[in-house]
């Protein structure tokens, strides 16, 4: 198989995806591609199939038609070993965190390590603690159970678990939903920091306009069963489609855009913390 330079093949590319539930067509002729090192935001109205698209890209749902390529290779051509290593290259943060409720935070993070790597318990525990540290949770939280965590902490713990195997691609399903603005901004900053440290490619399904403005390199809009526009936020916001105009032209969007120095700045976070008296 011809293997072009892995630095330039897109980690994920989907062409002509058709997704259907019975007579209900969700995606039709959908093309989507993520470049290496990008943070891509996926937006769309409720019920437009954002989560379904994410599940399709994750391999949780087989599309009815179309082709999925990962690092240049077609999913259908992968053998069992390659499929497993692909799965290890993808980390997911589900909406509610999806932590195993009978395990402590540390044990949750150790699950993928135990399954896929052969190393001593001590090292595994220490690596789990390092992930806990990396997502900004206090060290004491290692022995807590998910039921003892707040919403924001659950998301961070879920993120730590999704990073356990050092994935190349990170999927985030509504990462900032249900967080207060300070927590949400801190989470955004965290994603940027982790991308830098771990060389991540990030796909983020989100409704949070602040997040879109703060950290996304490109934004894909899922309307009318396909990706209607996929570009930097400034271009997307000007795109001529009623839904897009309503979404980005609404008062919330304008407020988010007005945040001083919104694009990729830590200043935003600092000013917000200052405003909150921290």
């Amino acid at each position, binding site marked *: 198989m011809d293997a072009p330079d892995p630095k330039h093949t897109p980690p994920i590319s989907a062409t002509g995806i058709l997704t259907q539930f019975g007579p209900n067509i969700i995606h039709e002729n959908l093309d989507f591609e993520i470049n290496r090192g990008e943070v891509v935001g996926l937006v769309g109205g409720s019920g437009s199939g954002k989560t379904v698209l994410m599940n399709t890209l994750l391999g949780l749902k087989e599309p009815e038609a179309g082709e999925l390529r990962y690092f240049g290779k077609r999913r259908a051509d992968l053998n069992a070993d390659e499929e497993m290593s692909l799965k290890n290259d993808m980390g997911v943060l589900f909406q509610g965190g999806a932590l195993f409720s009978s395990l402590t935070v540390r044990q949750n993070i150790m699950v993928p390590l135990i399954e896929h790597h052969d190393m*001593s318990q001590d090292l595994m525990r220490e690596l789990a603690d390092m992930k806990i540290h990396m997502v900004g949770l206090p*060290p004491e939280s290692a022995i807590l159970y998910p039921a003892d965590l707040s919403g924001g902490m659950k998301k961070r713990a879920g993120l730590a678990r999704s990073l356990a195997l050092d994935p190349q691609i990170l999927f985030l399903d509504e990462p900032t939903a249900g967080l207060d603005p300070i927590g949400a901004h801190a989470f955004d900053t965290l994603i940027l920091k982790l991308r830098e440290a771990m060389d991540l490619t990030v796909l983020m399904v989100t409704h949070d306009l602040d997040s879109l403005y703060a950290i996304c390199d490109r934004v894909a809009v899922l309307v009318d069963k396909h990706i209607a526009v996929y570009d930097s936020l400034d271009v997307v916001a000007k795109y001529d489609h009623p839904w897009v105009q309503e979404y980005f032209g609404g008062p919330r969007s304008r407020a988010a855009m007005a945040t001083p120095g919104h694009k990729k700045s830590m200043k935003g976070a600092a000013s917000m913390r200052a405003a909150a008296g921290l």
Partner: protein
Amino acid sequence: MLSTPAIYDVSLQGTRLIVKAHGHWTVETAASVFERLDADYDALNYESVEYHLQGVEALDTAGAYILTKAVRVADVCKSWELIGGTPSQQTLLSVAADCQMGDPPRSKHQWIETLDRLGRATVRFADETFATLSFIGQFFVMFFGVLIRPKRMRLKSIIALMEEVGLDAAPIVAVLAFAIGAVIAYMGANLLGALGFSVFMVDLVGISMLRELAGVITAILIAGRSASAFTAQIGAMKMRQEIDAMTVMGLDTFETLVIPRAIACLLTLPILTFLAMISGILGGLIVAWVTETQISPFLFLSRLQEMVDIKHFWVGMVKAPFFAIVIAIIGCRQGLAVSGSVDSLGSRVTTAVVQAIFAVILIDALFAILFYQLGV
């Protein structure tokens, strides 16, 4: 992918530790040098560390973590420095260097743990008993309240629940009772046939099915089937805050969830018990007919009528409503006791089934004593 192993080289310049890393420092390769590197770090006396990353081809969090072990011994290492490496490798290494370890897992001393669990179980038993008793009290207050004002009875949900508890369970109850009736008849045919009294198997089947088995088997089956279903349904509603929503809307959870279930059980369990009696006797009848005892159905039925008093039927039937109420109360109470986690739902369902079956057998035993004393 072929990867070169993790290679390192440590040397000491005065109090400065020089660590030169080469190759792949990833989770697959670095774990193998973890202990060796750790021992090397321990053996040397240093106050500051210098990392040379020029030779590193790949670095992930595990690799960075293992490399920076030297820095994290805080009372030893005062400063550290990085030479070479890509910006992302440098970020990763500095993140790894200042990472703090969490608390160790809670220690487990076997016997302390055992005592701890014993103590907790005792307290829980007391709490559970108290909560069940207060639940029963609350239940009867509400139950008679609803009986006085039948308008508050929720007919629709009662009928839907009767289908679920009664009609859907009818086939399994009938088959099970049939099988048990047949088994008893076989035993009778064997034991009594050897003495030449094989016709007494009619009495055996009739009395045992009517008096004890039909009622108990049905109740145990419904305890396993419906008590668990009640707990799971109400527990899932509790977990999704539906119960809270109802309370806020001013709907009484007892009136909407518990009472309809109790009434559905109360109405269906006697019917199911009756079905089990018929089915069990039918099983006995067929076995008596087809085996070498060759008691014809006509003879079987006429002897049944002659020898088995109607009081046995009433003894069996009168217990059914008690079983019904107890099963419904236990199922609902465990459902409402579910807290937020998935674990608690699972353990509550188990508790509900165990308690319900236990209660059914206990009540049956109490009735046996009562009827014996009364001479019934």
